[in-house]
């Protein structure tokens, strides 16, 4: 099937309310979710008489915790559901555990749960003009419904958002008929309620997520960090958590909070780290050996980065993860409780161990001038990791990530804050063929860069977008302009703009550039847990 590329920048919405209230004392979880459904939901929903699917419009759907939370929010807002926040959490927990999604079902769409901004989705053409012109693919890709439920879902759209059929790409065709009769049957197959993946996952014994974890992550404006994550299960699927570690420059990092696990693998934590409220959205590996996902600021979910936690003692990552032939530099080996001698592979000498902490080992490393170009395995004592360090001859190419991005104007007395965008420079050497951009390029990892902006095209130059749309700092963090009409601009337009983000990586006396596209646009006025 031909897949059409649909530019769909998923701009994360604000803090997931789900976690704000979910992390209440464990006692509140004693409330039985199923009893609550019978008491609260069956005031309108009905008993079907089928023990396999007992509740109308409920038992025929499966969703993520965020998906169920959105449903409950809608029931409160539009259908008169009266329910306390503790009860909401109990119902979400019950439904996510009994009518959730398997790890393999959420895997393609984790970015939306992680509130990761600037993801460009590949959307099936059948959905591009129908669902994905308003929603992310992840929005419907993270739901499983029976055919009848997908049909009723179209009717819900017609009732709640009646102008749906007047939008561009709807009003010039028989939208309702196409939605109901053409697209729904495909949804019922592609995102089927009865998928064996869920039954198989339910049957599995879920791993314990209790214990000590080696954590590596990145935070915009701060850089790479290492930490030890301690988790303690206080009641079933509820954890107290603490994180202690360092940013790569040595600044300490410390925080505490709590977490909850849904469907046996969906990790949702809320922590205060160095005074800032943060959220973690991670998925546990099916064997429980690792957690991976994203941590972000609760109030600005675009400010966040990937993190990986490996159970026990392990080499998780290096910062930086490349060394040039003949170069001497500090390298931080990230991992908890690393003991023993450090090996960085052939041709890379550990000149000195500079420091050892619970979460990292910092070494002064030197690559010989004749060290062969390529990846090295790294070990500290018994802890080993494959292909963690790249030895390179020169930086040949730089990619700026994300390559397509959006920032949103805000502030200026309005209710909606500015939404920044953040960038990293990913470097490559050319590989054996000497040509960058080919399959044998060697990925060197993220590097420090000098950041600047340019107008994206002639139109942007003419409209002086560079002057109005915002600025970028030395850490690759772009801050957009103020919201509201700007009478200085043509048509009094907002401080929107079409820009190019330039990263310049210095390699000896040479500078290698990469760029990315940035659209600075208007605020998001409707915030959802799943865009």
């Amino acid at each position, binding site marked *: 099937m031909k897949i059409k590329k649909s530019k769909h920048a998923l701009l994360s919405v604000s803090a997931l309310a789900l976690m704000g209230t979910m992390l209440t004392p464990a006692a509140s979880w004693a409330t039985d979710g199923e009893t609550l459904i019978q008491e609260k939901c069956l005031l309108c929903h*009905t008993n079907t008489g089928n023990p396999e699917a007992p509740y109308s419009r409920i038992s025929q759907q499966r969703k993520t915790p965020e998906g169920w939370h959105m449903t409950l929010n809608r029931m409160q807002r539009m259908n008169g559901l009266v329910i306390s926040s503790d009860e909401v959490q109990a119902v979400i927990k019950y439904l996510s555990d009994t009518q959730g999604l398997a790890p393999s079902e959420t895997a393609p769409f984790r970015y939306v749960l992680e509130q990761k901004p600037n993801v460009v989705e590949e959307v099936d053409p059948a959905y591009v003009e129908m669902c994905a012109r308003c929603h992310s693919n992840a929005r419907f890709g993270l739901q499983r419904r029976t055919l009848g439920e997908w049909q*009723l879902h179209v*009717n819900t759209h*017609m009732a709640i958002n*009646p102008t749906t059929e007047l939008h561009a790409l709807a009003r*010039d065709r*028989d939208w*309702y008929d196409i939605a109901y009769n053409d697209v729904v049957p495909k949804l019922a197959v592609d995102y089927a309620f009865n998928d064996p993946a869920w039954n198989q996952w339910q049957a599995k014994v879920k791993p314990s997520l209790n214990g000590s974890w080696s954590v590596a992550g990145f935070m915009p404006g701060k850089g790479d960090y290492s930490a030890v994550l301690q988790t303690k299960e206080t009641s079933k699927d509820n954890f107290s958590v603490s994180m202690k570690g360092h940013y790569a420059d040595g600044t300490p990092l410390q925080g505490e909070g709590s977490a909850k696990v849904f469907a046996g693998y969906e990790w949702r934590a809320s922590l205060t780290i160095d005074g800032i409220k943060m959220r973690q959205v991670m998925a546990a590996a099916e064997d429980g050996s690792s957690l991976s996902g994203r941590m972000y600021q609760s109030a600005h979910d675009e400010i966040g980065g990937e993190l990986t936690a490996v159970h026990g003692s392990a080499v998780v990552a290096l910062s930086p993860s490349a060394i040039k032939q003949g170069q001497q530099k500090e390298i931080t080996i990230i991992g908890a409780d690393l003991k023993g001698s450090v090996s960085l592979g052939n041709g890379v000498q550990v000149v000195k161990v500079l420091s050892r902490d619970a979460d990292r080992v910092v070494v002064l490393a030197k690559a010989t001038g004749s060290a062969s170009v390529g990846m090295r395995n790294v070990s500290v004592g018994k802890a080993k990791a494959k292909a963690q360090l790249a030895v390179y001859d020169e930086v040949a190419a730089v990619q700026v990530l994300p390559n397509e991005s959006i920032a949103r104007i805000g502030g200026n007395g309005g209710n909606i804050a500015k939404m920044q965008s953040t960038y990293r420079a990913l470097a490559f050497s050319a590989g054996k063929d000497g040509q960058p951009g080919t399959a044998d390029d060697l990925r060197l990892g993220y590097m420090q860069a000098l950041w600047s902006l340019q107008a994206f095209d002639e139109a942007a130059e003419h409209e002086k977008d560079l002057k109005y749309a915002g600025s970028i700092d030395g850490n690759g963090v772009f801050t957009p302009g103020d919201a509201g009409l700007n009478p200085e601009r043509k*048509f009094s337009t907002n401080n929107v703009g079409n820009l190019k983000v330039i990263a310049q990586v210095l390699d000896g006396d040479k500078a290698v550039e990469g760029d990315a596209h940035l659209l600075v646009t208007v605020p998001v006025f409707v915030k959802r847990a799943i865009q």
Partner: protein
Amino acid sequence: MNISNIFKTATLLCAAGAVTLMSGCAANQAVSVNGMAADGHEYLLTVTRPNQLHVIDTETKQVVRSCDVPGTFGTGAVQPSPDGRIAYVLTNGAEDVYGFDITNCDITFSAKQSQNGVKVKTFISLAISNDGKELYTVQNPTRKLNDRYEVLAPRLAVFNTADGLDAKSVRNFPVDRRITKIMTMKNGEVILGGADIKAINPVNGEVRMLSALQNWARGADWIPPDAFAMFTQGEHVGEYIMPYFTIKWNGDPGDMEQAEFWWGMSRIDIATGEVDERETVPFEFIVFNWITDPNDSNILYGAFNQLSKHDLSQNKTVDVIDLDHTFYSINMDRSRTIYIGGTSSDISIHNPDTLEKIGSIQLTGDMSTSDLRIARLL
């Protein structure tokens, strides 16, 4: 200045120009309604947030009065009665209609269309019969059941305006989905503007095609047009006008190198029902709405980020100026003065010959998607 002083001033002005203006002054002086100049005197009608109907004198460019509209803002659709006295406003989330006497803000009519668990939305579709006795809306109903929604068929609803407050529809007839602006023709049929443009007889519900757009039969070289309008224009020249956008491929569909991008329109003479459906000018910039010059039906004016003038005889845009900001709607009074409104809180006034901005009317709130209609008060 009190009312008697206004009359005194008007009398003196008339006396000063008695030789040439005698008949006009006599008429103006004689015909007024509740102190408002009548005999066809023109007033602009629009709605602003939070929800006020504004009555604006086209001669003085001043707001004569502002009437509070019940309910939350709808789409701001406005339909004047044939005598210009009553302004019907769609409100309350595009569900209810209220009729206002524009001379005193009295509410003369109301209809709450959502009833008995059926929610009715009207997508700007308001029209009135030529005698002012019947109001037409297109209703898009959905029914809320205990745990699900049911989508019901759209219908033309007919109200008797004399039924006053809390009126109920007296007739209903099925119509297509996706209908937006509607207008009554001289023969009494109601033009239904949707993907295709049809006319319905509001007495018996008979529907006939006026302008097949979604279902036009031009073959694969043209894409079915995107015909859409959220605003009603044309009353100043007695026409209904629906803009559209289309593509002519000139080869393989999807080959943008060969393709031509066109604006087009279906323009219907409401006196004769004659349809003028054609491409107008190449797509060079966005135009939200067209109006026709009363002196030359080949001349169209359009508005959005620009005010533009187009000559259909040449298929060319002949003049264009940038506006202060984005505007949605455009209309014209009897003297050919252009008014541009919608979006923000100011109506921009322009000379049709030069397109030059000659004035501005500041309102108390944003017009958003509101209509900008002309009422000729009799």
